[in-house]
């Protein structure tokens, strides 16, 4: 396993960085927010991501994708974290695409994966029903009825829910075992309520009331759906950890830049040891987060059976470090760090929201303890 980028990865990273900083810088995100954009992201940008092949990053070539793997997906999210770029990439190109790949039947893959690759659809991934992430707390049911299924339950804060055409819902079947169903949002019995969050994203709450589904709504391609679900979530966790890492890195960079230029007492404030030690500690922590996020992403590609502890640990570390980097950032900016005009506060907000998504640092620590057998 390599902890350095190969040439192809380096190129992907560089091109993503220049594309995002030109096309989707923080000012673009601010505009979406200030315009009250009903999707919470730019449809044009989503199309561009499709044109560049990003939407197919986890999809095999047979379905139109480029299949570069989880590490590559993480690289892209890391860059999106740097520019605070909202998009359906994580929910649709990572979570939904992985769900279809590992749990979908051939027919389901053939139907949905090309749509994801073309950028023609937004699919949410609905797991949580309570305030804190816990994939074991599933009360939503998808029970057999005739040749089809009937779905009942509620899901909260489904990422990109406001704009989603469909959602993949984690439910329990008539035996109480976890299953995955793909539901069209316009289906009778589906109601959604968009929720504007602190980071200006637009997830939605969903209620499913006796939603009648065809039999082919059930993703039944996996031998072990429960194991598949765990894998999907681990891919999601490692990828959102990469986004958190990007948030931390950029928050750190702008902070260092600021303290080098801001003068008080007749000197740049970066010359004060009180700030130098905070900055050096922060860099140390970011280096640690960077390593473990790389490790988790690579493990998912190379030895997925070993991935659970790394995904949980990387998610926990990246969550904690991005929170630290952004809150320390505000502190080091001083008064202007509290203003809406400066970007550092936006990074702080995204760090919190990305941190909660699919399990925060406390959740990850519990997982690590469990997986380590203590």
């Amino acid at each position, binding site marked *: 396993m*390599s*902890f*350095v980028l190969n040439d192809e990865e380096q190129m992907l990273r560089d091109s993503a960085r220049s594309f995002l900083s030109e096309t989707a810088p923080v000012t673009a995100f601010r505009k979406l927010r200030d315009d009250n954009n009903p999707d919470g992201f730019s449809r044009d940008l989503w199309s561009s991501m499709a044109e560049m092949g990003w939407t197919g990053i986890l999809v095999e070539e047979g379905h139109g994708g480029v299949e570069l793997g989880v590490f590559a997906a993480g690289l892209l999210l890391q860059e999106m974290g740097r520019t605070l770029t909202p998009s359906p990439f994580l929910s649709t190109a990572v979570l939904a695409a992985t769900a279809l790949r590992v749990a979908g039947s051939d027919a389901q893959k053939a139907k949905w994966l090309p749509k994801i690759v073309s950028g023609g659809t937004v699919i949410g991934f609905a797991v949580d029903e309570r305030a804190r992430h816990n994939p074991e707390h599933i009360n939503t049911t998808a029970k057999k009825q005739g040749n089809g299924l009937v779905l009942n339950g509620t899901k909260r804060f489904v990422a990109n829910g406001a704009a989603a055409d469909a959602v993949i819902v984690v439910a329990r079947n008539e035996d109480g075992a976890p299953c995955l169903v793909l539901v069209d949002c316009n289906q009778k019995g589906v109601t959604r309520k968009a929720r504007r969050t602190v980071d200006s994203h637009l997830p939605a709450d969903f209620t499913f009331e006796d939603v009648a589904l065809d039999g082919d709504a059930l993703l039944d391609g996996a031998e072990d759906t429960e194991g598949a679900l765990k894998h999907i979530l681990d891919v999601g966790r490692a990828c959102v950890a990469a986004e958190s890492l990007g948030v931390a890195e950029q928050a750190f960079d702008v902070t*260092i830049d600021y*303290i*080098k230029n801001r003068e008080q007492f007749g*000197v*740049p404030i*970066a*010359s*004060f*040891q009180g*700030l*130098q*030690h905070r*900055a*050096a*500690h922060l*860099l*140390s922590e970011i*280096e*640690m*987060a*960077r*390593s*473990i996020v*790389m*490790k988790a992403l690579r493990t998912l590609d190379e030895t997925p059976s070993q991935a659970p*502890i*790394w995904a949980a*640990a990387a998610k*926990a*570390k990246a969550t904690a470090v991005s929170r630290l980097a952004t809150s320390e950032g505000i502190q080091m900016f001083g008064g202007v760090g509290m203003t809406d005009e400066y970007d550092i506060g936006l990074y702080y907000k995204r760090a919190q929201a990305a941190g909660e998504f699919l399990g925060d*640092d*406390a959740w*990850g*620590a*519990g997982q*690590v*303890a469990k997986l*380590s*057998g*203590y």
Partner: protein
Amino acid sequence: MSLETFRKETRDWLEANCPPGMRVPAKGEADICWGGRNWTFASDDQRIWLERMAERGWTVPTWPKEYGGGGLSKEEAFVLKEEMKAMKARSPLDSFGIWMLGPALLKYGSEEQKREHLPKIARGEIRWCQGYSEPGAGSDLASLRTKGVLDGDEYVINGQKVWTSYADKSDWIFALVRTEADAPKHLGISFILIDMETPGVSTKPIKLISGKSPFCETFFDDARAPVSNVVGKPGQGWDIAKYLLSHERAGIVSDAVSGGLNPVGAAHLAGEVDENGQIADPILRGDVARLTIDALAFESTLRRVKDEADKGEGVGAKASILKYVGTELNKRRHELNMSALGSDGLLWEGEKEEDGEAARSWLRSRANSIEGGTSEIQLNIVAKRVLELPGS
């Protein structure tokens, strides 16, 4: 030879040659083999293990063969380390000669110095100590005042060192001595090798909070050392000292990882686990889990730094990040170990050899963030050299 063949042959050789007594983790300081003229082996196994490994040059796997090393490539040395770890084999020899002086001599030493000193380090025949710190020169090491005055082809050395680890048990010392009185602070220092049996060299042990006395005050009263014992050129000592410090830091860091200390095991020992084997106190369990996460992140970072180095990216001042994070992590690990042990951890001495070891090693760990440059000094280095923040 391919790396895979090397791995197999190494494994077979270790299997055949590592004595059973050397395949259990060291219980504490007492189990570590330091070597030296006055060394008494803790067991026959310890002696045999050192002899066999030294014979192959595997006490210092990457050093050239002509100086007693194994002549292995970095990759091969890594394989050896992995294979030793897999069979829980102890290190056959630990010493300041290996971690610190050796690398400095390889880079700066004359051919005679290398031939004279390196093989003896490799075989564990000569034990070295480090004479850097002085009462008035700690973090500000370059303000050191021990001085050497040229008299014919000898330096006459006067002054005092302090915190010299194992000075009373060592055979030779590598010392920083101010030889050019008029030169600027950093340019007047020489790196000199001195036999501890030289008349005028004496030591006085200092007792630590751990109850042990592994370090000393070291005095030089008109002690004489030949000019040929200067490493590099006179006045070049600071460069060599800094180069050596980076190796010292790497040594302290790898210590921090391979410590083998595990608060989970401690909780089991103390009977503080529930029927499922979970640490009974949920908050302590959470703290241990957060430690585990940080340890995984740190180990991943060591791997990454290695990969980056292989690709030609220098470690440079990043070594300070590793020293800072690794030592603070190790201190936390010891603290949690003590919490997990509860009152059992407080034992100072008892019937068994290992009684008191937890408390003493916990106390010893406090020094990790002091020795080899304090945590604050590492943060200063990161701020200045990595982040390039302006000086205050």
